[in-house]
């Protein structure tokens, strides 16, 4: 089992954002979290992150990219803990060939190869999102927690990225606002409203009513 939450509450600045959450997530599962903004899905994701810090790759909604650094350095950042400070500092000014080659291969898959040494600030929203996705992949752990990872991508790239997630990580948990992606690509969907789980079902078992509810909670 990847995660087990039993009757858990989660507060942020003295406000209860998640109430009585009961959730079991198995290894190898593909889980989509759906809900309006403020429904608690990002909080749930962060809560899950805290439970398994060392086994998790995380893509935050705000991407947390360093605008003044190049695409290369932003992606390399996920492996800072794997090297000594000296190695990292040298690589900041004189990128090592080995790292550049490895990152180039990743970038090629998402059509960003020519941007490798460009400042992130010059990229479009979709390009930035792909950089954040690749930063997570560069040091991929067994579990992926991603907050709206494909919100700025077109359909072609969104599908490509989601398929790549399933090939790279054992367990994938994403917050989404696109109900059709959730139903088409994931095993299970969870619908959240006001910090409470209102739907928790395998995609194959969703009734028409459930689908309508999901569309409703995501609007």
């Amino acid at each position: 089992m990847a995660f087990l939450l039993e009757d858990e509450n989660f507060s942020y600045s003295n406000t209860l954002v998640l109430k009585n959450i009961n959730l079991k997530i198995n290894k190898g599962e593909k889980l989509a979290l759906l809900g309006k903004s403020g429904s608690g899905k990002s909080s749930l994701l962060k809560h899950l992150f805290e439970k398994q810090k060392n086994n998790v790759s995380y893509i935050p909604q705000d991407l947390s990219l360093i605008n003044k650094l190049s695409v290369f350095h932003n992606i390399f950042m996920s492996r800072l803990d794997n090297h000594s400070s000296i190695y990292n500092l040298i690589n900041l000014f004189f990128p090592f060939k080995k790292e550049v080659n490895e990152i180039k291969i990743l970038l090629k898959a998402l059509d960003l190869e020519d941007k490798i040494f460009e400042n992130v600030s010059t990229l479009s929203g979709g390009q930035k999102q792909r950089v954040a996705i690749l930063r997570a992949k560069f040091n991929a752990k067994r579990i992926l927690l991603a907050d709206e990872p494909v919100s700025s991508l077109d359909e072609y790239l969104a599908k490509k990225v989601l398929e790549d997630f399933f090939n790279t990580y054992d367990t994938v948990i994403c917050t989404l606002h696109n109900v059709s992606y959730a139903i088409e690509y994931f095993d299970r969907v969870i619908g959240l409203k006001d910090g409470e789980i209102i739907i928790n079902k395998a995609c194959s078992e969703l009734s028409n009513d459930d689908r309508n509810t999901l569309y409703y909670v995501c609007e």
Partner: protein
Amino acid sequence: MMTGILYIMFVSKNFKVTFFFCLLAFISFLFSDFSISSLEPMLELKKFFFALFEINISTLPSLFPAILRTVCIAVLALFFSSFFGFILALFYENVFIRTFLSFIRAIHELFWALIFLQIFGLNVLTALLALILPFSAIFAKVYFEILEEHDVFDKQLRGKNILSYYFYSKVPDAFSPLLSYTLYRFECALRSSAILGFVGITTLGYYLSSSFNQAYYNEVWLLLLMFYALIASIKLWFNKYSFLFIFFFSFYYLGDFGSLSFSNLIRFISVDIIPYPIKASLSFEDGSLWFYRFFSNEIVPGLFNTILLTQVALVLTGAMTLLVFPFISYKFSNIYVRFLSHIVLIVFRSSPEYILAYLFLQIFGPSFLPAALALMLHNGSILAFLIGKQANALEYRLDFSSSKISLYAYETLPRLYSSFLSFLFYRWEIIMRESAILGMLGLATLGFFIDSAIADFRLDKMMILLILTAFLNIVIDNISKRVSRYLKSDTEIKRCY
């Protein structure tokens, strides 16, 4: 219900604070000496002014060494202090380091120069250390604040290698403000390097004071004009392409740095600065008497006069700011007035207070007048420039009054007053530091007693007075923060340049 002026007087916090500080300045004024003691100040002023038209360009080459040494010392001091400041910024959250640095910062670079003169003698090393110490402490504080503002990286993504994350996330994000602050500090380093000449280092101040003493006013003008040209053209000659060259050239040009004498250092710490009663094993009564005399003849007058000068200069600075800022704002003045006012402000901003005070002192004779005038002109120019810029950014109603006075009193001043006060209180601590140092020119502020203690080789007294100066500075800094908090200004001023 209170209306009009009564409302303003009793309810507005801004007014209460202004009233209180004006009253304090008035009382300070009554207790201080603002007389003109020179016999014919106007004649001297005239002579000085007309010397501007007698400038002899052929003497220029003989003054080049003064400028070169000033620049070289400033460049090396900037490099080392920004390096140390950056490292110290990493540990700035530590309360001991923070307190220690605020103490180092509170002592003016000229005072540091006086200390190092006793230990290492009159050489480049003394000059560099005198600048590097307070500048590193200032850099540490400001770098820390800038880096704090640029904390954008998600905490969840941060790993264990703190140093690497620091260099990959905070530093690149904060890089341009860090760089622009460092470059701004170069201007300050040039000014500080120039005034080190007044304690004997052969930088610009040294040549300036010797030309002045011989009444070669045309040479004084030439030196000043060269200095203004140097500061106005910083961006042209000090940039990323020239930095390495200037840096290595400075090492080469300064050549002999002097030597680090550890025996002198040990003597300074273990003998020179130990208070006399302890050193001479005086009895408790004799020791108390020594301290009582020191306290009543030097400490009390020094502190008292420093505070008097500070308070008068603070209010004068404020008054000048409010009077002058309309002259650089396009809302009030046409392009010709603005251009001229800008030039005047730049000249006063670039002139170190110490040099201005020195000039006025020669003209008016020793009293608080030249010092207060110098402090007002330098600080008032900086603030008028900042407030003028803010006035330019104001958006008025479409039907605003066409009378400039109404525009000033009804639309502009009320909206800028809070930020004006915040800026003014930010400068308070700086004005106090300068008031103390101006004593070295002969006014009875703390600098005078420190200078006299050194002349009599009473380094124990010097040390006690320096510690008191730093302490007073820290106290004023804290009061200023409290006043700003009381006023609850919406714009928190962290840097004022």
